[in-house]
Protein backbone atom coordinates (compact mmCIF):
# COMPACT_ATOMS: atom_id res chain seq x y z
CA UNK A 1 0.00 0.00 0.00
CA UNK A 2 1.49 3.37 -0.92
CA UNK A 3 2.01 5.56 2.07
CA UNK A 4 0.16 8.72 1.34
CA UNK A 5 0.22 11.71 3.58
CA UNK A 6 -1.96 14.52 2.48
CA UNK A 7 -1.24 16.52 5.61
CA UNK A 8 2.32 17.01 4.42
CA UNK A 9 1.02 18.51 1.23
CA UNK A 10 -1.43 20.78 2.92
CA UNK A 11 -0.09 24.12 3.92
CA UNK A 12 -0.18 25.29 7.52
CA UNK A 13 0.99 28.85 8.00
CA UNK A 14 3.49 29.45 10.76
CA UNK A 15 2.89 32.43 13.07
CA UNK A 16 5.32 34.57 11.05
CA UNK A 17 3.55 33.61 7.84
CA UNK A 18 0.18 34.43 9.43
CA UNK A 19 1.43 37.86 10.39
CA UNK A 20 2.53 38.41 6.82
CA UNK A 21 -0.90 37.37 5.53
CA UNK A 22 -2.54 39.81 7.91
CA UNK A 23 -0.06 42.50 6.91
CA UNK A 24 -0.86 42.04 3.23
CA UNK A 25 -4.48 42.92 3.81
CA UNK A 26 -3.51 46.43 4.84
CA UNK A 27 -2.88 48.13 1.50
CA UNK A 28 -1.46 51.35 2.88
CA UNK A 29 1.07 49.44 4.94
CA UNK A 30 1.94 47.40 1.87
CA UNK A 31 2.54 50.62 -0.08
CA UNK A 32 4.77 51.74 2.79
CA UNK A 33 6.69 48.48 2.51
CA UNK A 34 7.23 49.03 -1.22
CA UNK A 35 8.42 52.55 -0.54
CA UNK A 36 10.77 51.28 2.16
CA UNK A 37 12.03 48.59 -0.21
CA UNK A 38 12.73 51.30 -2.79
CA UNK A 39 14.79 53.24 -0.24
CA UNK A 40 16.73 50.13 0.75
CA UNK A 41 17.54 49.45 -2.91
CA UNK A 42 18.47 53.10 -3.39
CA UNK A 43 20.82 52.97 -0.44
CA UNK A 44 22.43 49.72 -1.58
CA UNK A 45 22.65 50.25 -5.33
CA UNK A 46 22.05 53.98 -5.92
CA UNK A 47 25.65 55.26 -5.67
CA UNK A 48 26.74 52.92 -8.50
CA UNK A 49 24.43 54.56 -11.00
CA UNK A 50 25.25 58.17 -10.21
CA UNK A 51 27.33 60.18 -12.69
CA UNK A 52 28.57 62.62 -10.03
CA UNK A 53 30.10 62.24 -6.61
CA UNK A 54 28.37 63.88 -3.61
CA UNK A 55 31.23 66.32 -3.09
CA UNK A 56 32.19 67.01 -6.75
CA UNK A 57 31.57 70.66 -7.69
CA UNK A 58 30.46 71.75 -11.12
CA UNK A 59 31.31 75.47 -11.16
CA UNK A 60 29.50 76.02 -14.43
CA UNK A 61 26.17 74.92 -13.00
CA UNK A 62 25.59 76.70 -9.72
CA UNK A 63 22.06 76.73 -8.28
CA UNK A 64 20.75 74.89 -11.34
CA UNK A 65 17.01 74.08 -10.91
CA UNK A 66 15.79 70.48 -11.14
CA UNK A 67 15.34 68.91 -14.59
CA UNK A 68 11.54 69.40 -14.58
CA UNK A 69 11.97 73.18 -14.31
CA UNK A 70 12.14 75.24 -17.55
CA UNK A 71 15.73 76.28 -16.78
CA UNK A 72 16.78 72.83 -15.60
CA UNK A 73 19.24 70.51 -17.22
CA UNK A 74 18.80 66.76 -17.51
CA UNK A 75 22.43 66.08 -16.53
CA UNK A 76 21.59 67.30 -13.00
CA UNK A 77 18.24 65.62 -12.43
CA UNK A 78 17.60 67.24 -9.03
CA UNK A 79 19.53 70.41 -9.87
CA UNK A 80 22.59 71.67 -7.98
CA UNK A 81 23.20 73.53 -4.74
CA UNK A 82 25.01 76.82 -3.98
CA UNK A 83 28.50 75.52 -4.84
CA UNK A 84 27.51 73.42 -7.83
CA UNK A 85 27.20 69.98 -6.19
CA UNK A 86 24.73 67.57 -7.83
CA UNK A 87 21.69 67.31 -5.54
CA UNK A 88 20.63 63.84 -6.71
CA UNK A 89 24.02 62.43 -5.77
CA UNK A 90 23.87 64.23 -2.45
CA UNK A 91 20.36 63.05 -1.63
CA UNK A 92 21.20 59.44 -2.51
CA UNK A 93 24.38 59.52 -0.46
CA UNK A 94 22.50 61.35 2.26
CA UNK A 95 19.91 58.56 2.38
CA UNK A 96 22.77 56.11 2.56
CA UNK A 97 24.36 57.85 5.53
CA UNK A 98 21.15 58.66 7.39
CA UNK A 99 19.35 55.39 6.72
CA UNK A 100 22.44 53.18 7.01
CA UNK A 101 23.61 54.79 10.22
CA UNK A 102 20.10 54.56 11.71
CA UNK A 103 19.81 50.91 10.69
CA UNK A 104 23.05 49.91 12.35
CA UNK A 105 22.49 51.90 15.48
CA UNK A 106 19.00 50.43 15.87
CA UNK A 107 20.50 46.96 15.43
CA UNK A 108 23.09 47.68 18.09
CA UNK A 109 20.55 49.25 20.45
CA UNK A 110 18.25 46.26 19.97
CA UNK A 111 21.00 43.78 20.72
CA UNK A 112 22.14 45.56 23.86
CA UNK A 113 18.62 46.48 24.98
CA UNK A 114 17.32 42.95 24.52
CA UNK A 115 20.16 41.36 26.44
CA UNK A 116 19.74 43.70 29.39
CA UNK A 117 15.94 43.50 29.15
CA UNK A 118 15.98 39.71 29.10
CA UNK A 119 18.26 39.67 32.11
CA UNK A 120 16.03 42.15 33.93
CA UNK A 121 12.91 40.22 33.00
CA UNK A 122 14.23 36.94 34.27
CA UNK A 123 15.81 38.19 37.46
CA UNK A 124 13.98 39.13 40.60
CA UNK A 125 14.66 41.41 43.51
CA UNK A 126 16.78 44.50 43.97
CA UNK A 127 18.85 44.29 40.78
CA UNK A 128 15.77 43.93 38.60
CA UNK A 129 13.97 46.84 40.24
CA UNK A 130 17.03 49.08 39.91
CA UNK A 131 17.21 48.35 36.18
CA UNK A 132 13.47 48.82 35.81
CA UNK A 133 12.95 52.05 37.67
CA UNK A 134 16.14 53.78 36.61
CA UNK A 135 15.50 53.10 32.93
CA UNK A 136 11.82 53.90 33.16
CA UNK A 137 12.83 57.29 34.54
CA UNK A 138 15.23 57.79 31.62
CA UNK A 139 12.45 56.87 29.20
CA UNK A 140 10.47 59.90 30.31
CA UNK A 141 13.09 62.12 28.62
CA UNK A 142 12.71 62.42 24.82
CA UNK A 143 15.46 60.62 22.94
CA UNK A 144 16.53 63.74 21.04
CA UNK A 145 17.08 65.67 24.24
CA UNK A 146 19.02 62.77 25.68
CA UNK A 147 21.07 62.56 22.50
CA UNK A 148 21.85 66.28 22.65
CA UNK A 149 23.07 65.91 26.23
CA UNK A 150 25.27 62.97 25.26
CA UNK A 151 26.65 64.83 22.20
CA UNK A 152 27.41 67.79 24.46
CA UNK A 153 29.61 65.46 26.50
CA UNK A 154 31.16 63.45 23.67
CA UNK A 155 31.57 66.31 21.20
CA UNK A 156 30.02 66.79 17.76
CA UNK A 157 30.38 64.51 14.75
CA UNK A 158 28.37 61.80 13.02
CA UNK A 159 29.99 58.97 14.95
CA UNK A 160 29.36 60.60 18.31
CA UNK A 161 25.78 61.40 17.41
CA UNK A 162 25.29 57.76 16.43
CA UNK A 163 26.60 56.61 19.80
CA UNK A 164 24.38 59.14 21.50
CA UNK A 165 21.23 58.01 19.71
CA UNK A 166 22.10 54.35 20.32
CA UNK A 167 22.42 55.04 24.02
CA UNK A 168 19.19 57.01 23.98
CA UNK A 169 17.28 54.21 22.23
CA UNK A 170 18.47 51.37 24.44
CA UNK A 171 16.07 52.07 27.36
CA UNK A 172 13.02 51.56 25.09
CA UNK A 173 14.23 48.15 24.02
CA UNK A 174 15.07 47.20 27.58
CA UNK A 175 11.62 48.29 28.71
CA UNK A 176 9.71 46.33 26.09
CA UNK A 177 11.88 43.23 26.32
CA UNK A 178 11.71 43.23 30.08
CA UNK A 179 7.93 43.57 30.03
CA UNK A 180 7.51 40.80 27.51
CA UNK A 181 10.02 38.42 29.09
CA UNK A 182 8.57 39.05 32.53
CA UNK A 183 5.08 38.33 31.23
CA UNK A 184 6.03 35.24 29.26
CA UNK A 185 8.24 33.96 32.06
CA UNK A 186 5.24 33.43 34.29
CA UNK A 187 3.33 31.47 31.68
CA UNK A 188 2.87 27.77 32.00
CA UNK A 189 4.79 26.81 28.90
CA UNK A 190 7.95 28.13 30.54
CA UNK A 191 7.28 25.97 33.59
CA UNK A 192 6.73 23.06 31.23
CA UNK A 193 10.06 23.78 29.52
CA UNK A 194 11.75 23.93 32.89
CA UNK A 195 10.30 20.53 33.74
CA UNK A 196 11.86 19.27 30.53
CA UNK A 197 15.13 20.22 32.14
CA UNK A 198 15.83 23.45 30.27
CA UNK A 199 18.21 26.00 31.78
CA UNK A 200 17.30 29.69 32.01
CA UNK A 201 19.35 30.57 28.94
CA UNK A 202 17.77 27.77 26.94
CA UNK A 203 14.31 28.83 28.06
CA UNK A 204 15.00 32.34 26.82
CA UNK A 205 16.45 31.37 23.44
CA UNK A 206 14.23 28.40 22.65
CA UNK A 207 10.93 29.19 24.34
CA UNK A 208 10.57 32.93 24.81
CA UNK A 209 12.58 34.40 21.93
CA UNK A 210 10.46 32.74 19.19
CA UNK A 211 7.47 34.50 20.72
CA UNK A 212 9.27 37.83 20.85
CA UNK A 213 10.54 38.17 17.30
CA UNK A 214 7.49 40.00 16.01
CA UNK A 215 7.43 42.39 18.93
CA UNK A 216 11.10 43.11 18.27
CA UNK A 217 10.46 43.80 14.59
CA UNK A 218 7.71 46.27 15.46
CA UNK A 219 9.90 47.96 18.06
CA UNK A 220 12.80 48.09 15.63
CA UNK A 221 10.75 49.85 12.94
CA UNK A 222 9.52 52.40 15.47
CA UNK A 223 13.08 52.94 16.70
CA UNK A 224 14.32 53.24 13.12
CA UNK A 225 12.02 56.16 12.35
CA UNK A 226 13.01 57.84 15.62
CA UNK A 227 16.69 57.29 14.81
CA UNK A 228 16.37 58.80 11.32
CA UNK A 229 14.62 61.87 12.69
CA UNK A 230 17.17 62.24 15.48
CA UNK A 231 20.21 61.84 13.23
CA UNK A 232 18.88 64.45 10.81
CA UNK A 233 17.89 66.73 13.66
CA UNK A 234 21.37 66.55 15.17
CA UNK A 235 22.84 67.13 11.71
CA UNK A 236 20.57 70.13 11.24
CA UNK A 237 21.66 71.57 14.57
CA UNK A 238 25.32 71.12 13.50
CA UNK A 239 25.78 68.68 16.38
CA UNK A 240 25.91 65.57 14.24
CA UNK A 241 27.40 65.18 10.77
CA UNK A 242 29.35 68.28 9.78
CA UNK A 243 28.93 70.52 6.77
CA UNK A 244 30.49 68.94 3.64
CA UNK A 245 29.00 65.58 4.55
CA UNK A 246 25.83 64.83 2.52
CA UNK A 247 23.93 63.72 5.64
CA UNK A 248 20.31 64.81 5.08
CA UNK A 249 20.00 67.00 8.18
CA UNK A 250 23.36 68.66 7.54
CA UNK A 251 22.27 69.26 3.92
CA UNK A 252 19.14 71.03 5.16
CA UNK A 253 21.11 73.37 7.39
CA UNK A 254 23.61 74.04 4.54
CA UNK A 255 20.81 74.93 2.17
CA UNK A 256 19.17 77.35 4.60
CA UNK A 257 21.27 80.24 3.23
CA UNK A 258 20.04 79.69 -0.31
CA UNK A 259 16.53 78.62 0.66
CA UNK A 260 14.81 81.56 -1.09
CA UNK A 261 16.84 81.39 -4.30
CA UNK A 262 16.91 77.60 -4.56
CA UNK A 263 13.98 76.13 -2.64
CA UNK A 264 14.62 72.69 -4.21
CA UNK A 265 17.90 72.36 -2.32
CA UNK A 266 15.90 72.26 0.89
CA UNK A 267 12.69 70.59 -0.24
CA UNK A 268 14.29 67.55 -1.89
CA UNK A 269 16.36 66.33 1.09
CA UNK A 270 13.36 67.18 3.29
CA UNK A 271 11.11 65.09 1.10
CA UNK A 272 13.58 62.22 1.32
CA UNK A 273 13.51 62.32 5.14
CA UNK A 274 9.74 62.63 5.13
CA UNK A 275 9.22 59.68 2.79
CA UNK A 276 11.64 57.47 4.66
CA UNK A 277 10.07 58.14 8.04
CA UNK A 278 6.54 57.89 6.61
CA UNK A 279 7.19 54.53 4.96
CA UNK A 280 8.86 53.13 8.05
CA UNK A 281 6.01 54.28 10.25
CA UNK A 282 3.44 52.80 7.87
CA UNK A 283 5.25 49.48 7.92
CA UNK A 284 5.60 49.55 11.68
CA UNK A 285 1.97 50.43 12.18
CA UNK A 286 0.85 47.77 9.71
CA UNK A 287 2.96 45.19 11.50
CA UNK A 288 1.49 46.15 14.84
CA UNK A 289 -2.07 45.86 13.54
CA UNK A 290 -1.29 42.56 11.84
CA UNK A 291 0.15 41.25 15.07
CA UNK A 292 -2.86 42.34 17.07
CA UNK A 293 -5.22 40.70 14.58
CA UNK A 294 -3.25 37.49 14.62
CA UNK A 295 -3.20 37.29 18.41
CA UNK A 296 -6.91 38.08 18.66
CA UNK A 297 -7.87 35.52 16.04
Amino acid at each position, binding site marked *: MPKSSFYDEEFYPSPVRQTWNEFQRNHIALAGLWCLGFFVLLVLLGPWFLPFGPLAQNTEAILLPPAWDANGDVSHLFGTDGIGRDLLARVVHGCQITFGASFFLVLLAMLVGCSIGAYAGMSRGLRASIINHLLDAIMAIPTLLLAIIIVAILGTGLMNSMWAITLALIPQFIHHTRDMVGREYRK*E*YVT*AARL*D*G*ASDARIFFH*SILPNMIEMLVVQATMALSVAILDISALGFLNLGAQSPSPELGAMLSDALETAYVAPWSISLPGAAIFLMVLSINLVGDGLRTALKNRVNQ
Partner: protein
Amino acid sequence: MNPLLTVSNLSYSKKDKSWFGKQEHFRLAPVSFELKAGETMAIMGENGSGKSLLAKLLVGVARPSAGEILLNGESLHDKRQRFQAIRMIFQHSKESLNPALTLGSLLEEPLILNTDLDARERKRKIEETLKLVGMLPEHQYFYRHMLSEGQRQRVAVARALILNPQVLVADEPFAALDPSVRSQTVNLLMKLQRDLGLGFIFISHNLGIVRHISDRILVLEAGQLVESGKTDVIFNWPKSDYTRRLIHAYQALITRDE
Protein backbone atom coordinates in the same frame (compact mmCIF):
# COMPACT_ATOMS: atom_id res chain seq x y z
CA MET B 1 5.46 -5.39 45.62
CA ASN B 2 7.65 -2.43 46.30
CA PRO B 3 6.10 0.97 46.10
CA LEU B 4 7.06 2.96 43.03
CA LEU B 5 6.88 6.31 44.69
CA THR B 6 7.28 6.88 48.39
CA VAL B 7 6.57 10.30 49.79
CA SER B 8 7.44 10.77 53.43
CA ASN B 9 6.70 13.80 55.54
CA LEU B 10 6.69 16.14 52.59
CA SER B 11 5.95 19.67 53.74
CA TYR B 12 6.19 23.16 52.37
CA SER B 13 6.11 26.51 54.02
CA LYS B 14 6.59 29.87 52.44
CA LYS B 15 8.09 32.60 54.53
CA ASP B 16 6.66 35.99 53.82
CA LYS B 17 9.25 38.69 54.29
CA SER B 18 7.49 41.86 55.30
CA TRP B 19 8.46 44.94 57.30
CA PHE B 20 7.01 43.38 60.43
CA GLY B 21 9.23 40.33 60.50
CA LYS B 22 8.86 36.98 58.91
CA GLN B 23 5.50 35.29 58.68
CA GLU B 24 4.70 31.78 57.70
CA HIS B 25 2.59 32.34 54.64
CA PHE B 26 1.26 29.04 53.47
CA ARG B 27 1.98 25.54 54.55
CA LEU B 28 1.52 22.06 53.38
CA ALA B 29 1.60 19.97 56.51
CA PRO B 30 3.71 16.81 56.35
CA VAL B 31 2.13 14.40 53.90
CA SER B 32 3.14 10.79 53.47
CA PHE B 33 1.87 8.24 50.99
CA GLU B 34 2.97 5.46 48.74
CA LEU B 35 2.12 4.75 45.14
CA LYS B 36 2.52 1.40 43.45
CA ALA B 37 3.19 0.96 39.76
CA GLY B 38 -0.03 0.90 37.79
CA GLU B 39 -1.94 2.50 40.62
CA THR B 40 -4.03 5.64 40.34
CA MET B 41 -4.28 8.09 43.15
CA ALA B 42 -6.60 11.06 43.25
CA ILE B 43 -6.04 14.17 45.31
CA MET B 44 -9.24 15.86 46.45
CA GLY B 45 -9.96 19.02 48.32
CA GLU B 46 -11.41 22.49 48.12
CA ASN B 47 -9.77 25.33 46.24
CA GLY B 48 -6.64 26.48 47.97
CA SER B 49 -6.27 23.31 49.98
CA GLY B 50 -2.77 22.70 48.63
CA LYS B 51 -3.56 20.17 45.92
CA SER B 52 -1.69 21.96 43.16
CA LEU B 53 1.14 22.71 45.54
CA LEU B 54 1.52 19.02 46.29
CA ALA B 55 1.63 18.30 42.56
CA LYS B 56 4.26 21.00 42.07
CA LEU B 57 6.37 19.57 44.87
CA LEU B 58 6.16 16.11 43.35
CA VAL B 59 7.35 17.17 39.88
CA GLY B 60 9.94 19.61 41.16
CA VAL B 61 8.53 23.02 40.23
CA ALA B 62 8.62 23.99 43.88
CA ARG B 63 11.17 22.87 46.41
CA PRO B 64 9.82 21.20 49.55
CA SER B 65 10.86 22.58 52.93
CA ALA B 66 11.22 19.14 54.42
CA GLY B 67 10.59 15.52 53.73
CA GLU B 68 11.68 13.39 50.86
CA ILE B 69 10.43 11.71 47.75
CA LEU B 70 11.76 8.24 46.96
CA LEU B 71 11.44 6.65 43.56
CA ASN B 72 11.85 2.88 43.66
CA GLY B 73 13.40 3.30 47.09
CA GLU B 74 16.04 5.77 45.93
CA SER B 75 15.97 9.45 46.68
CA LEU B 76 15.72 11.89 43.81
CA HIS B 77 18.91 13.90 43.94
CA ASP B 78 19.69 13.82 40.26
CA LYS B 79 17.54 16.49 38.64
CA ARG B 80 17.73 14.95 35.21
CA GLN B 81 16.57 11.60 36.49
CA ARG B 82 13.68 13.26 38.27
CA PHE B 83 12.54 15.24 35.24
CA GLN B 84 12.59 12.04 33.26
CA ALA B 85 10.85 9.81 35.78
CA ILE B 86 8.08 12.10 37.02
CA ARG B 87 6.25 14.06 34.34
CA MET B 88 3.45 16.54 34.67
CA ILE B 89 0.30 17.25 32.69
CA PHE B 90 -0.80 20.81 33.21
CA GLN B 91 -4.29 22.05 33.93
CA HIS B 92 -4.48 24.40 30.96
CA SER B 93 -3.05 22.46 28.07
CA LYS B 94 -3.30 25.56 25.89
CA GLU B 95 -0.98 27.59 28.05
CA SER B 96 1.48 24.80 28.60
CA LEU B 97 2.21 24.63 24.86
CA ASN B 98 4.46 27.29 23.37
CA PRO B 99 2.47 29.20 20.72
CA ALA B 100 5.50 29.94 18.53
CA LEU B 101 6.75 26.38 18.12
CA THR B 102 5.42 23.46 16.13
CA LEU B 103 4.36 20.43 18.10
CA GLY B 104 7.35 18.60 16.64
CA SER B 105 9.90 21.00 18.09
CA LEU B 106 7.89 21.16 21.30
CA LEU B 107 8.08 17.41 21.74
CA GLU B 108 11.69 17.35 20.64
CA GLU B 109 12.80 19.66 23.44
CA PRO B 110 12.59 17.08 26.27
CA LEU B 111 14.30 14.51 24.05
CA ILE B 112 17.20 16.85 23.28
CA LEU B 113 17.63 17.73 26.92
CA ASN B 114 17.19 14.32 28.48
CA THR B 115 18.23 11.67 25.97
CA ASP B 116 21.12 10.98 23.63
CA LEU B 117 18.98 10.19 20.59
CA ASP B 118 20.07 11.65 17.26
CA ALA B 119 17.78 13.69 15.01
CA ARG B 120 16.29 10.73 13.15
CA GLU B 121 15.59 8.70 16.26
CA ARG B 122 14.02 11.75 17.87
CA LYS B 123 11.70 12.21 14.92
CA ARG B 124 10.69 8.56 15.07
CA LYS B 125 10.08 8.78 18.79
CA ILE B 126 7.92 11.87 18.32
CA GLU B 127 5.85 10.14 15.67
CA GLU B 128 5.47 7.05 17.84
CA THR B 129 4.36 9.09 20.80
CA LEU B 130 1.86 11.07 18.74
CA LYS B 131 0.37 7.82 17.50
CA LEU B 132 0.29 6.50 21.05
CA VAL B 133 -2.00 9.31 22.17
CA GLY B 134 -4.23 8.90 19.14
CA MET B 135 -2.92 11.65 16.89
CA LEU B 136 -1.29 11.57 13.49
CA PRO B 137 2.46 11.83 12.82
CA GLU B 138 1.63 14.80 10.61
CA HIS B 139 0.49 16.74 13.65
CA GLN B 140 4.14 17.49 14.37
CA TYR B 141 3.95 20.29 11.79
CA PHE B 142 0.99 21.89 13.53
CA TYR B 143 1.02 24.87 15.81
CA ARG B 144 -0.93 25.15 19.02
CA HIS B 145 -3.66 27.33 17.55
CA MET B 146 -4.56 24.76 14.90
CA LEU B 147 -5.66 22.17 17.43
CA SER B 148 -8.88 21.68 19.31
CA GLU B 149 -8.91 21.61 23.09
CA GLY B 150 -9.04 17.82 23.17
CA GLN B 151 -6.12 17.51 20.78
CA ARG B 152 -4.10 19.91 22.88
CA GLN B 153 -4.77 17.75 25.90
CA ARG B 154 -3.50 14.78 23.93
CA VAL B 155 -0.35 16.69 23.03
CA ALA B 156 0.15 17.53 26.68
CA VAL B 157 -0.14 13.83 27.46
CA ALA B 158 2.27 13.02 24.63
CA ARG B 159 4.74 15.50 26.01
CA ALA B 160 4.54 13.86 29.41
CA LEU B 161 4.89 10.36 27.99
CA ILE B 162 7.69 10.98 25.51
CA LEU B 163 10.41 10.41 28.10
CA ASN B 164 8.95 7.07 29.21
CA PRO B 165 8.21 8.26 32.72
CA GLN B 166 7.28 6.08 35.65
CA VAL B 167 4.96 8.48 37.38
CA LEU B 168 2.51 10.89 35.78
CA VAL B 169 1.25 13.85 37.78
CA ALA B 170 -1.75 15.69 36.38
CA ASP B 171 -3.22 18.90 37.75
CA GLU B 172 -6.92 18.86 36.87
CA PRO B 173 -6.33 17.41 33.42
CA PHE B 174 -10.03 17.14 32.68
CA ALA B 175 -11.34 20.44 34.00
CA ALA B 176 -11.37 22.47 30.80
CA LEU B 177 -12.76 19.74 28.54
CA ASP B 178 -16.33 19.21 27.46
CA PRO B 179 -17.96 15.94 28.61
CA SER B 180 -17.38 13.85 25.50
CA VAL B 181 -13.75 14.87 25.10
CA ARG B 182 -13.34 14.46 28.84
CA SER B 183 -14.40 10.85 28.76
CA GLN B 184 -12.17 10.27 25.74
CA THR B 185 -9.21 11.68 27.60
CA VAL B 186 -10.03 9.71 30.73
CA ASN B 187 -10.21 6.52 28.70
CA LEU B 188 -6.98 7.38 26.89
CA LEU B 189 -5.15 7.96 30.14
CA MET B 190 -6.54 4.78 31.70
CA LYS B 191 -5.54 2.75 28.66
CA LEU B 192 -2.04 4.22 28.55
CA GLN B 193 -1.62 3.66 32.23
CA ARG B 194 -2.67 0.03 31.93
CA ASP B 195 -0.42 -0.54 28.93
CA LEU B 196 2.63 1.24 30.25
CA GLY B 197 2.23 0.44 33.94
CA LEU B 198 2.54 4.03 35.11
CA GLY B 199 1.83 5.39 38.51
CA PHE B 200 -0.75 8.13 38.04
CA ILE B 201 -1.49 10.91 40.47
CA PHE B 202 -4.18 13.37 39.53
CA ILE B 203 -6.07 16.25 41.00
CA SER B 204 -9.71 16.63 40.23
CA HIS B 205 -12.84 18.34 41.41
CA ASN B 206 -14.92 15.93 39.45
CA LEU B 207 -15.73 13.22 41.95
CA GLY B 208 -17.40 11.14 39.26
CA ILE B 209 -14.09 10.73 37.47
CA VAL B 210 -12.28 10.26 40.75
CA ARG B 211 -14.61 7.46 41.70
CA HIS B 212 -14.38 5.97 38.23
CA ILE B 213 -10.64 5.75 37.77
CA SER B 214 -8.80 6.13 41.03
CA ASP B 215 -7.68 3.30 43.29
CA ARG B 216 -6.90 5.49 46.23
CA ILE B 217 -7.81 8.95 47.36
CA LEU B 218 -5.97 11.61 49.33
CA VAL B 219 -8.13 14.32 50.86
CA LEU B 220 -6.53 17.67 51.71
CA GLU B 221 -7.98 20.53 53.68
CA ALA B 222 -6.07 23.80 54.02
CA GLY B 223 -2.76 22.05 53.59
CA GLN B 224 -3.59 19.28 56.06
CA LEU B 225 -4.01 15.67 55.11
CA VAL B 226 -7.54 14.83 56.25
CA GLU B 227 -7.70 11.23 55.24
CA SER B 228 -6.52 8.77 52.69
CA GLY B 229 -7.60 5.33 51.68
CA LYS B 230 -9.21 3.18 49.05
CA THR B 231 -11.74 4.89 46.84
CA ASP B 232 -14.64 2.68 47.89
CA VAL B 233 -13.94 3.16 51.55
CA ILE B 234 -13.64 6.92 51.28
CA PHE B 235 -16.81 7.26 49.25
CA ASN B 236 -18.93 4.88 51.33
CA TRP B 237 -17.56 5.38 54.80
CA PRO B 238 -15.87 8.75 54.97
CA LYS B 239 -14.27 9.24 58.34
CA SER B 240 -14.11 13.00 58.52
CA ASP B 241 -16.81 15.58 58.26
CA TYR B 242 -14.94 17.45 55.53
CA THR B 243 -14.86 14.47 53.19
CA ARG B 244 -18.49 13.76 53.89
CA ARG B 245 -19.35 17.32 52.93
CA LEU B 246 -17.36 17.12 49.72
CA ILE B 247 -19.12 13.92 48.71
CA HIS B 248 -22.55 15.20 49.71
CA ALA B 249 -22.03 18.38 47.72
CA TYR B 250 -21.16 16.34 44.70
CA GLN B 251 -24.10 13.98 45.09
CA ALA B 252 -26.48 16.87 45.58
CA LEU B 253 -25.22 18.28 42.30
CA ILE B 254 -25.86 14.99 40.49
CA THR B 255 -29.37 14.48 41.81
CA ARG B 256 -30.27 18.01 40.84
CA ASP B 257 -29.04 17.32 37.33
CA GLU B 258 -31.39 14.35 36.97
